[in-house]
């Protein structure tokens, strides 16, 4: 059945056309700057290139009129570089992305934080090697910020923590697995394959297919030294005390990486971009809300080899009386499941108590409990070093306790 064509034979049935709106004095200028839809995309490409430093797309309306020449050039460029050919979405598509806007409001970030920067933090160097479009430099800054804030939190709140535990606690708070978990909690989804046509609100990185090997930069990690001591680790290694260096972003360009690596770089880049756009007070609040709010049981990170020997040396160093283990109570000594409760005493003071199914086990547990009580000492109220930055907080400053170090056996 043939379709009726309204335009040809039914124009008298249509509603009368609306009367022409009175012409506005600035219509001419408006028509000069606003272009038909299919030319708008190519126009903004050329416009951004022509504008002087610092101006963005929003300044197009205020700039002088654009001639026909750059319009034709921009249009041909768009035909040569369709979105699918770009390695990552064009910055202008950030404003149209619902995912980015939703992410910004989900993280309670102020609206003056640009969506274009948020889009940039989601682009891993494996998707786009250009450092002006990926998150490598932002990630480097964010990594320094995160490790600084975590370190000062741990050192001020737990001044006697051994350096091994510090490494482990840093890994627990801001390590790659923790950051990947945080990214998934924030609702970050990954694009199946990076490209200019994907939604800018997706995490873009070259995905590792299942069964595929890691890229050489992540696989062959040469250690710093063959006999890396803890002190040297502090000097050359990262905040987790890793035995080898992290790969450079250039080595990961266009190489498939695991999701953990991309998520870690996104979270770090986000913190870095927050610092640059919004300033350090907001970054500190963000860190407190999203990272420090995670619960970590520091006592479970300890693993003593010879706690009795360590405790004895510690008492000798601090000048306490030599520790002595005494049986506090016991039950079922000749049965199948005896329980012995042993306390370690220095003079009249009980340093620690432990229960075990043998006398030795209880004694060792008591010594470990005593060492944990020493190492996990926590002052009541502390002021962290970053609280004095910017000249504020000088009157509330309280010098932190500095411990001489863990006992060396």
């Amino acid at each position: 059945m043939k379709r009726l064509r309204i335009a040809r034979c039914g124009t008298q049935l249509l509603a009368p056309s609306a009367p022409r709106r009175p012409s506005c004095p600035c219509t001419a200028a408006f028509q000069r700057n606003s272009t038909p839809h299919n030319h708008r995309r190519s126009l903004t490409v050329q416009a951004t290139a022509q504008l002087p430093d610092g101006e963005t797309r929003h300044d197009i309306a205020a700039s002088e009129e654009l001639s026909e020449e750059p319009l034709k050039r921009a249009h041909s460029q768009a035909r040569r570089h369709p979105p699918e050919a770009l390695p990552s979405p064009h910055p202008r598509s950030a404003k149209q992305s619902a995912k980015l806007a939703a992410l910004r409001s989900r993280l309670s970030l102020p609206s003056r934080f640009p969506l274009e920067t948020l889009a940039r933090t989601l682009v891993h160097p494996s998707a786009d090697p250009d450092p002006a479009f990926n998150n490598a430099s932002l990630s480097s800054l964010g990594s320094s910020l995160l490790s600084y804030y975590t370190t000062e939190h741990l050192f001020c709140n737990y001044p006697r923590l051994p350096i091994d535990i510090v490494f482990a606690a840093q890994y627990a708070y801001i390590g790659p697995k923790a950051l990947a978990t945080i990214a998934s909690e924030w609702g970050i989804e990954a694009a199946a394959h990076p490209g200019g046509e994907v939604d800018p609100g997706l995490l873009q990185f070259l995905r590792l297919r299942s069964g595929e090997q890691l890229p050489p930069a992540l696989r062959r990690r040469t250690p710093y030294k063959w006999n890396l001591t803890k002190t040297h680790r502090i000097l050359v290694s990262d905040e987790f005390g890793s035995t080898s260096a992290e790969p450079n972003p250039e080595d990961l360009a266009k190489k498939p990486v695991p999701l953990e690596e991309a998520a870690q770089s996104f979270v770090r880049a986000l913190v870095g971009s927050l610092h640059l756009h919004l300033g350090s007070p907001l970054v500190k609040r963000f860190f407190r809300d999203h990272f420090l709010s995670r619960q970590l049981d520091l006592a479970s990170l300890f693993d003593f080899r010879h706690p009795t020997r360590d405790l004895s040396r510690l008492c000798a160093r601090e000048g306490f009386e030599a520790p002595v283990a005494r049986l506090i109570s016991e039950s079922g000594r000749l049965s199948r499941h005896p329980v012995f409760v042993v306390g370690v005493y220095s003079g009249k003071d009980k340093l620690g108590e432990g229960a075990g199914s043998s006398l030795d086990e209880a004694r060792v547990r008591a010594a470990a409990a005593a060492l944990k009580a020493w190492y996990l000492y926590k002052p009541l109220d502390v002021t962290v070093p970053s609280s004095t930055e910017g000249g504020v907080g000088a009157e509330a400053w309280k010098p932190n306790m500095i411990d001489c170090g863990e006992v060396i056996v």
Partner: protein
Amino acid sequence: MASRRPLRTLISTGPSALRAPQRVRRVIPETSACAFSTSAPTRDPATEIQYEAQSQARPRWQQTPARMIAPVRTRPLPKGPQFKVNDSPVKLDEMYNRMLGPDGYKVLSDEVKWLAVTHKSFDHGRRGFNDRLAFLGRRIVSLQASLALINSPQAKTTPEVDEYGRTPYTHPALAGLPGLTSEAKDSVMQIWRLAPIAQRYGLDKVTRWKPRKADDLEASGQNAVLATSLYAIVGAVALERGGEVANKIVQEKILAPMGLTFSG
């Protein structure tokens, strides 16, 4: 109620193991650590160890804890000359004045002043060491170096159109980001760049450490020890005086000699 008889005497150190069981006079070193024990020890003047009376008032940095010293040295002395370590507070204060400014010796408290320049190799770590301070100091220097690279005047370049015909998004806050590359960052925080700065302040004369070979300090890793001390001083200032003071010291005394200037 705990039993009077000890379960098994834990391994105690040299002096008390060799002699008959006796009450050892408790030494309270003046440190920032609070004393753990609250009970007063019973004192037997007849068997009191002589040197303990002298060591009572001396600070932790000045002496090894008495009960950690064995009465007899069992290993032979190492070959080569002995390495002499500074024990003069005057020389240490001079170094701090050189590094931290005119009243530099007042910035840190007494114990912490010595702790910041004591390496773990010194006295087997019995008088404390600067590992933890160096960890914090390195984090501060790393952050300040990143910010210096972002704020450096060479970093502010005009964005160019790339091969795909796109220009990056520009914003005044992101202006200096091209200056922060991994090569630039790695090249700043190198031991061979920090050690000469430490030597300039005289840290090599006051750092307390034990080189493997006293006649070849370079091969014994002096550069690493000096860099550790430098970081540790920064960390100590941050913990005792706050981040603002520490950041200023890093910018003026460590990064500026390396050529990294702060425009903002």
